[in-house]
């Protein structure tokens, strides 16, 4: 039996190996008895009882999701509750019972019409058909008294396979027991994927129909890095997968072998990811992207809604810092209520702070009000940074807006606290003006993805120049070095929140370059912390000097491999 590889979309850069358990939401029904053997009154009662039980379950799941994930995700269950009480659907089920079908067959029949109606409506409605299937299967499970797989009690070393996982399913998975999961449907941004990243479970989604052919109890590897599942893996594949998760979680702060502290923080995009960041041992949040608050909605979030989210983040890190990036949108991330002109060159256009000081001035003020208030209310230390800064004037103008907002809050009699203030170093201009920026600010955070793009003048999205878009290029390393020197000369601390910060191969180099903080995807925190404690600072500095003196990316890579 040789191994078989199935392609999907990897969502966490982790691998796991284990035994397949199918999470089967479908219930098989036997042939119905003849109509004259069925008592419609009794069947009506069974259906009513099942509806009540389903309502209770959904309400409980809704509450738990609101608690653990967020209100937006919980709203999915509100829709389910409404469909459950839909007179058109319940009416169809009751008619089928009157015609002599037992409750379970009537549920199947009644929902069939509704599902077809939704699919016929097309577009956004087709997604609702999936919701209806979900509700139908729940009712069938209850009415037939079928066992439901308890996802929080799966045996150790399980790989869970399913057509699709709902947010509440994924929230129950225990990373200590579950070696990974794979789903036939879903993409990188599906709820299941977001959860997997935040709790650190190897996961591959969107494998397609072929996943459904894998047998229960098969041995399987989920490789989130390569985005594939391997059925019947050979010895070598299995070992590689088993080793990838064998890393200790350090919840304490770490320092190099000679005692230089290095803060290891998490990048997050939603409040739902806070728990995962804490679980992976993050000391702080080094980048809280706030775009998610503004995307996928018809109107911007108001001050109170934002306040609640920021306080939630601060409360998750009572002993740490939370660095919130102000709204960073541009031509490449359209938002319905924001007027964004199509630009010739969005990456060189109206992005980040350019929008906040221009067309989005109102959004910016509201966000700053919410942030300053959150600083007074939340437990952790708040820091706020501005994206895409290129000039000293942009910083001065931003600081003036903050002063203005402070005066406003004083006038409104609302409590607030001044956060630490900083900028994302993404433009070469910010590197060259580093000394003047550091005089005005408390910290810098280097966004290496964009900094690399602008230093190398090579788009991240253009395959043809991908070879140029590499943060290991000595030109990028020299830009980082210069930013670190400028920050420290102005008594500011400096961190890094681009993908480079989470590359375990580069930890020594980055410590050698003098970065005070590294912020990354939560799943890579244990590896980076494990590297930090092994580092000798003097050696790391020498190593960084050599890398800075390199002439080519290849030379840098050679030195990294030594």
């Amino acid at each position, binding site marked *: 039996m040789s191994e078989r590889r199935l392609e999907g979309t990897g969502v966490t850069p982790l691998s796991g190996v284990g035994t397949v358990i199918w999470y089967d939401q479908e219930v098989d029904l036997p042939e119905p008895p003849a109509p004259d053997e069925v008592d419609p009154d009794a069947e009506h009662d069974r259906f009513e009882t099942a509806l009540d039980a389903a309502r209770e379950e959904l309400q409980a799941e809704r509450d738990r999701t609101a608690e653990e994930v967020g209100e937006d995700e919980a709203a999915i269950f*509100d*829709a389910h509750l*409404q*469909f459950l*009480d*839909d*007179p*058109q*659907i319940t009416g169809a089920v009751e008619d089928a019972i009157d015609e002599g079908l037992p409750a379970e067959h009537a549920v199947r029949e009644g929902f069939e019409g*509704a599902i077809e*109606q*939704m699919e*016929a*409506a097309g*577009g*956004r*409605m087709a997604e*609702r058909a999936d919701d*209806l299937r979900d509700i139908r299967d729940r009712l069938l499970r209850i009415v037939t008294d079928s066992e439901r797989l308890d996802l929080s009690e799966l045996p150790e070393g399980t790989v869970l396979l399913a057509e699709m996982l709902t947010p509440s399913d994924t929230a129950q998975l225990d990373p200590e027991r579950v070696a990974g999961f794979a789903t036939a449907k879903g993409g990188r941004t599906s709820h299941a994927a977001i959860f997997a990243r935040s709790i650190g479970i190897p996961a591959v989604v969107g494998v397609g129909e072929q996943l459904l052919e894998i047998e229960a109890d098969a041995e399987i590897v989920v490789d989130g890095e390569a985005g594939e599942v391997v059925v019947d893996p050979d010895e070598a594949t299995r070992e590689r997968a088993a080793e990838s998760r064998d890393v200790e979680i350090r919840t304490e702060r770490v320092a190099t072998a000679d005692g230089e502290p290095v803060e290891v923080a998490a990048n997050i995009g939603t409040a739902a990811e806070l728990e995962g960041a804490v679980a992976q041992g993050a000391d702080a949040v080094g980048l809280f992207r706030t775009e998610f608050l503004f995307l996928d909605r*018809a*109107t*911007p979030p108001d001050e109170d809604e934002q306040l609640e989210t920021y306080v939630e983040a601060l409360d998750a890190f009572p002993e740490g810092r939370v660095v919130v990036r102000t709204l960073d949108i541009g031509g490449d991330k359209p938002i*319905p209520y924001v007027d964004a002109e199509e630009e010739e060159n969005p990456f060189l256009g109206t992005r980040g702070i350019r929008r906040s000081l221009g067309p989005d001035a109102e959004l910016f003020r509201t966000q700053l009000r919410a942030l300053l208030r959150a600083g007074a209310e939340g437990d952790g230390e708040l820091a706020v940074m501005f994206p895409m800064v290129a000039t000293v004037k942009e910083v001065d103008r931003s600081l003036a807006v903050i002063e203005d907002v402070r005066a406003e809050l004083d006038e409104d009699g609302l409590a607030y606290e001044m956060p630490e203030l900083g900028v994302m170093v993404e433009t070469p201009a910010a590197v060259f003006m580093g000394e003047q920026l550091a005089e005005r600010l408390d910290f810098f955070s280097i966004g290496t993805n964009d900094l690399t793009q602008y230093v190398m003048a090579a788009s991240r999205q253009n395959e043809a120049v991908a070879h140029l878009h590499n943060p290991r290029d000595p030109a990028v390393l020299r830009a980082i070095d210069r930013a670190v020197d400028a920050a420290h000369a102005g008594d500011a601390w400096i961190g890094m929140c681009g993908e480079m910060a989470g590359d375990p191969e580069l930890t020594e180099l980055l410590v050698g370059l003098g970065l005070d903080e590294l912020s990354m995807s939560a799943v890579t925190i244990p590896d980076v912390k494990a590297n930090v404690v092994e580092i000798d600072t003097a050696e790391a500095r020498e190593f960084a000097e050599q890398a800075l003196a390199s002439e080519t990316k290849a030379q840098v890579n050679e030195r990294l491999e030594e």
Partner: protein
Amino acid sequence: MERTVTIVPEAGLHARPASKLVETANEFESELQIAAGGEEPVDARSMLAVSSMAAEQGEDVRLIADGPDAEAALDALEEVLTTPEDEYDE
């Protein structure tokens, strides 16, 4: 009694506005129906029926009510359909 209303929420009769309409219809005793364009009226208490209408922002819909609290029900439904989504109170 009947009333014609133009849909204001940006999302049209999908997602939250549809949800809100069904929720509101459930607060009344009267029989309540809604119809888009020249279509057959459907039950305003059915999420399935309301969302399959796929009525968009700016479209006219007919609200039909029959029962003891018909007028109050029409007022309430009209309010849902003419309130921008960001003004819903949670």
